[in-house]
């Protein structure tokens, strides 16, 4: 995207552009209970265990140090300076455009572009719909991280959850488990004959979530992906018959693929769904995340809270001024 920011640009950003008001309320609310970490030289966040009594101390620190990157803990501690007495932690979904297992753009490995960033936004929007509409979680914030998105959830129940519960909710929201298909017959006299339902025949609950995710994946396949459990021939056929899914004609799609191979797809897609999100982050209760309002110096973009998640455009809201002021040939194109 816009390449690395120079030291001068960083200084300019923090002195002239960065403003206390850019810090979201959910960050400033209980600021002193969080741990901060900084990366001053672009070699990883080595300067950790920092604590700020109030936002103004943070402001002074940022303005004087202009760090390469700034991070804040998702955890609240009674004693953040030593990361002791953990109290609670945000629940996070991290979707990184460069790590999407299925991308419809033609980015090289490790790169991102407008298209895969847009795809990331669609994905996080779907996740939020589930977190909110299905699971009823409250207090959900979306952050553009510079190369992807963080969903940061401050729902009280989830903030107290252990890693196991976070993992279970993750699997549900991501669609990482193949939905149950066999149900015992409720008629006791027919107990031997189970009912079988394909995921796409049940338009409610988790089955629907899973079906939606799989459809999304299939529609974004390019044909050169390497996916465990899907061989090149199957991949080709999926693309050949995926037009059936435009009308949700799953039965026809499955019929053309064949039941055994369809089963392979379903299993593989559960894995793809899991890999779409950085699961390690979601189950971690002590991680630090990029600080909203700070500069992502590697790509010269701002990490910002997303106000309108339906049509957020990072190129409109997350490009620091100095990028526009660079000499023309330096302003990398939106590739």
């Amino acid at each position, binding site marked *: 995207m816009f390449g690395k920011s120079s030291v001068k640009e960083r200084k300019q950003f923090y002195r002239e552009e960065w403003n206390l008001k850019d810090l979201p309320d959910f960050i400033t609310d209980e600021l002193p209970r969080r741990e901060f970490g900084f990366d001053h030289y672009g070699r990883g966040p080595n300067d950790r265990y920092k604590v700020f009594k109030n936002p103004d101390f943070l402001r002074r620190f940022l303005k004087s140090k202009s760090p390469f990157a700034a991070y804040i803990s998702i955890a609240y501690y009674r004693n953040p300076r030593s990361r002791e007495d953990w109290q609670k932690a945000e629940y996070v979904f991290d979707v990184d455009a460069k790590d999407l297992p299925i991308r419809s753009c033609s980015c090289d490995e490790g790169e991102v572009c407008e298209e895969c960033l847009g795809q990331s936004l669609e994905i996080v929007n779907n996740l939020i719909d589930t977190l909110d509409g299905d699971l009823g979680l409250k207090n959900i914030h979306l952050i553009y991280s510079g190369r992807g998105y963080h969903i940061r959830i401050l729902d009280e129940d989830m903030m107290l959850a252990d890693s196991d519960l976070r*993992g279970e909710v993750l699997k549900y929201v991501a669609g990482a488990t193949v939905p149950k298909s066999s149900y015992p017959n409720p008629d006791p006299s027919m107990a031997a004959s189970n009912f079988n339902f394909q995921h796409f025949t049940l338009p409610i609950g988790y089955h629907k979530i899973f079906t939606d995710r799989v459809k999304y994946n299939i529609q974004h396949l390019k044909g050169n992906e390497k996916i465990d459990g899907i061989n090149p021939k199957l991949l080709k056929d999926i693309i050949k018959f995926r037009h059936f899914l435009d009308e949700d004609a799953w039965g026809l799609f499955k019929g053309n693929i064949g039941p055994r191979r369809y089963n392979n797809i379903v299993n593989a897609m559960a894995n793809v769904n899991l890999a779409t999100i950085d699961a390690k982050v979601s189950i971690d209760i002590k991680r630090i995340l990029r600080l909203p309002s700070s500069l992502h110096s590697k790509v010269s973009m701002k990490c910002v809270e997303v106000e309108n998640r339906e049509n957020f455009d990072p190129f409109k809201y997350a490009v620091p001024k100095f990028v526009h002021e660079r000499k023309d040939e330096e302003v990398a194109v939106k590739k």
Partner: protein
Amino acid sequence: MVESSFLNPFCDEALNIVRNQADLSIVFDVDSRLVDIISFSPHQNLSDESYIPENIINLALKRIKWYIERKNNKEYNSHDYAYLFVEDISFYDVIVFHLTAQAIAYKFNFNSREMRLFVQSQGQIIEDRLGSLMLSEKRELTEDILGELMVSGTVEWTFLKDIISSKKLSLTDLLIDNGEVILDRDEFIYRFEDKFEDRSVSKMYDVLVGDNVKEEVLKNLIMQKTEEYIQNIQEKSHLIEPHPSILTLADEIEKTIDEEMTKYSTFYANVNSPGGYMEIGKLVKEAFPPCIKNTIEGVSSGGRNDAIVLFLTSFASYARLYPGIFANEGANIKVSDIDKNLDITEREILPLIFEAADNCTPPLFEDQPQEKINIISKLGFGMHSEVSLEHEGETKWYTPMSCEKVKIHLPQLCKKDKGCKGINNPLSYYTRAKWNLKKEGKLPDSNQSGNNSNSSGGD
């Protein structure tokens, strides 16, 4: 109508029974009313006096024995315990439940094998009792008890979070809408009426939710309450002196569980029996799955803690001591059940783990010496720097991570090979690979025979 105390030892009626049973000295006396109930239970096996617990203490022990037999004995005969499933037993059953819970709370640690066994037995008893009722009775009773437990037409899924977190119920198997788990037919119809065009909504409810989910929720909530109850007693235990009868019962429970578990212990499963390749024996590195090999070669800074403390520790200890864990689910096992004097643990398991820790970059204990304690704790020996019998049970022996977990926590270690096909746990990879090596005669000598002289205990 069936009283809810038949299934819910925490309902008002049950608590009343317990309150009125203040005199605990009588629990050793022959109780003729109890004997009557048992003798008149339909289908009860009365061929021998030993089938009839004649006092409350014996009933408590029978109840535990029942569970272990039910789980392990292939010739288990439900007629030996028919009285546990007649409603008339409720009164005694409630007393026995509370006495046992207290005995366990005083004598054993939280989450000890004894405690887990008791909690699971409560779940099983509920399941079997529900199964013994007529459909209409069952439905009515389930409704009533769910009501007592504050669950009716719907319940917020977060109310069930402990059950979900412990994976007793999977979130993906519940029908959740707007934060609420749908349990009730009317709720289901109201919310999803227009979703099923060519099928009857009501029928769909029966299949997707129906009695099953409700009963599962009920059972798990009571198991959870049982855990909380025990924890509560333990927290107050320094304030209240337990009645001597309870302490006696605790000793008897320990004896019963030990005897029964030895009877059904599968640590030394015969090589010829199915699953016999799960015998214990020296660790065979050649049979390790890729993820474990990668761990032993050393992990770099991201992920090295989990790789060593959680993943390798549980794998190595179970692979060495109890590879059959997944075939015997519910068998509650401590390291010392197999490794009686902890020799194997100290001489084989810990050295392997410590070596792998050393191979990490940077070496794990160099900057994080406290991880040694965490390793000890994952073996079930509390937060201490060495394994010792005295502290065993203070923490849980962490069960091996599944492949799914490895993929979430430590994706860099999972480098699948042929042997990974169709398995879902690195431990199963290991037992299978070991079996294959054995078939091909490639197993190192000490492992070639089924009865490894190095293994101690289990006798």
